[in-house]
């Protein structure tokens, strides 16, 4: 997904950012289904949407649901205008899957402001975003899930250091973000102090259930479809059809979660289902392409397909890591089944 502020602003002028936000905050009062359609079409077209994506998908709904009026006025219209970008500050060097162990601290000072110290890591696009919603410990005496809160950190504040990290393909899209005595205003807290864990997990339902959870490999699928030609042999047809069938199923599941989110439910279980199956599907698309690659007639399309395969293959391991690993999601599913 490309990062292109100009594209994000143009999209916002079109009315396609902040769709579900209320009009009073610059949104469009649209339904979640309308947002689903727009998101899907953008991803299917391979549009460079990454600048505003996280803000639009999860930060804005979080602020709308839990934020103070002043926060809504400050951030939501800017998000809806495609001008303000957010990143997710959950993971830390020692807190990956075990997110409840986060150690970054925000200590309340006597003047009501917060003093932030600690380190976040793997933060996608932190180097190009305006703000982070960080999960931090606000009660120093607390352990695990209690005592966590979410704060909004404006990333140009003094004491914030952002260092890009290169990934296996040499790209720099995620970062390490260090906080050294960063002073946050009293109103940086989102929602209730101590409720950070519950807020963050319901935020993750937005992250885990959307169409980006199964469309990351669509470009590769499209290329393959073209590369096998109009009259594929039986093996090619089976493989292509299988990818199509599962894509239909994943869409049906994701749309159903969208319906639950729209109804104000917290479909953590169903969202985890979509993410586990969806990321497996994306990785399976790579496997399928590998199985088919030497059966493709040697055309320009075959060469394009090999390039797209290489790019997708370079991303594929991350599909089942980001947003919660496969094993962790299956743990959530098992808990929902009542065995944990």
């Amino acid at each position, binding site marked *: 997904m490309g990062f292109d502020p100009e594209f994000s602003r143009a999209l916002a002028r079109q009315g396609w950012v902040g769709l579900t936000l209320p009009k009073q905050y610059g949104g469009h009062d649209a339904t979640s289904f309308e947002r689903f359609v727009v998101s*899907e079409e953008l991803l*299917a077209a391979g549009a460079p949407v990454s600048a505003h994506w996280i803000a639009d998908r999860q930060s804005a709904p979080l602020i709308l649901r839990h934020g103070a009026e002043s926060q809504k006025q400050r951030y939501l219209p800017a998000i809806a205008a495609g001008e303000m970008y957010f990143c997710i500050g959950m993971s830390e060097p020692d807190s990956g899957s075990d997110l409840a162990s986060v150690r970054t601290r925000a200590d309340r000072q006597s003047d009501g402001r917060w003093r932030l110290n600690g380190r976040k890591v793997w933060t996608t696009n932190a180097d190009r975003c305006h703000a982070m919603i960080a999960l931090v410990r606000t009660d120093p005496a607390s352990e695990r899930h209690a005592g966590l809160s979410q704060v909004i950190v404006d990333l140009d504040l003094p004491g914030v250091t952002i260092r890009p990290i290169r990934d296996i393909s040499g790209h720099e899209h995620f970062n390490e973000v260090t906080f050294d005595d960063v002073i946050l205003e009293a109103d940086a807290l989102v929602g209730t102090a101590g409720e950070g864990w519950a807020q963050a997990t319901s935020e993750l339902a937005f992250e885990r259930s959307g169409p980006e959870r199964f469309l990351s490999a*669509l470009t590769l*699928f*499209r*290329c393959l*479809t*073209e590369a*096998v*030609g*109009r*009259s*594929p042999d*039986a093996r*090619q*047809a*089976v*493989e*292509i*059809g*299988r990818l*199509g*069938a*599962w*894509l*239909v*199923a*994943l*869409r*049906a*599941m994701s*749309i*159903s979660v969208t319906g639950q989110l729209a109804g104000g439910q917290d479909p953590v279980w*169903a969202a985890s*289902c979509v993410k*586990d*199956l969806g990321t497996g599907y994306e990785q399976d698309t790579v496997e399928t392409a590998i199985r088919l690659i030497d059966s493709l007639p040697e055309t320009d399309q075959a060469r394009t397909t090999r390039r797209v395969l290489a790019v997708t293959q370079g991303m594929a391991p991350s599909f089942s890591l980001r947003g919660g690993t496969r*094993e962790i*999601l*299956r*743990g959530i*599913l*098992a808990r*929902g*089944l*009542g*065995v*944990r």
Partner: protein
Amino acid sequence: MRAMFQESVERLFADAVDAETLRLAETGAWSDSLWAQMEALGLPLAAVSEDLGGIGASWTDLFPVIRACGSSAVPAPLPETLVANALLSACGIAPPESGVTVFAAGDAVSVLRGLPWGRQARWLVLHDTTRGRLGLHDMTGAAVEHDVNVAGEPRDAVILASGSLVSDAAFDGPPDTVRLSGALIRSAQIAGALGRLTEMSAQYANERIQFGRPIGKFQAVQQQLALLATQAAAAGAVAEAAFMQARRTPHFATTASAKAVAGEAAGRGAAIAHAVHGALGFTHEHSLHFLTRRLWAWRTEYGSDARWSERLGRLIADAGEDGLWPFITETLKERPQP
């Protein structure tokens, strides 16, 4: 209407279908009273239009009914009769008021093989694809040779008696209507059975103690159960989508996807359920096999997952790169009710 159907069939099946019923059914027993109760609820004629004596229910309304036939392994061809009567209704033929009705493709003089519940059927709806006609046949006097699928469900060979035709009409549905309709109902039955397998397996994992604790406390078992649950959820979602898209006849791409996904899920799900249940689940005494053997059977009936994937794949390849996404979104697009 959907909620009402769901509630009444779930209550009926909970009362009327238990392990003993299923064991007896496998020895060839047939329960007149179960069928009579389904008729009393108006189920066999539910999809028939009101002017032809039915309720005019949509396939969306009927999804929970057919799914429940799967989760309870109901030993009677309610899904088949629902489809057969709906096909008659679609060509303006008034369906028989009562009795088991099944459906097949072929002609009235050849042997019809693998006919579900042929021995029990009072009526047969036959799609003659070469002539583009749909006929209602009386099964009285038909020669029936018993056969069963891997789950022991009747799949008989039948030759109709001469003069069996009761009425017929032109039918403009697709030539593979029988296969598509069969794939539609089987995908919902598979989804139902997988849902029940998930519940049974989670429950068993909480009860069976090894190494001093319930096996469900072991992460390896938890991960397998989660996988089973996702397969069940996927089959359920895509089967329901296919029912939502079905009108007089099923929607090709959605139904093909449903059978392909449900078929694969059936294989994986049954394997996990057996793994979790250990040797106990491998006994005839335990009721797990009523579902797992049906999953194996239903997976191959009316086209295996590979067969449906291949057909789907040919259409997708023909649509090409720019046709792919519209092809996919078309499968869930809102379609007008007839």
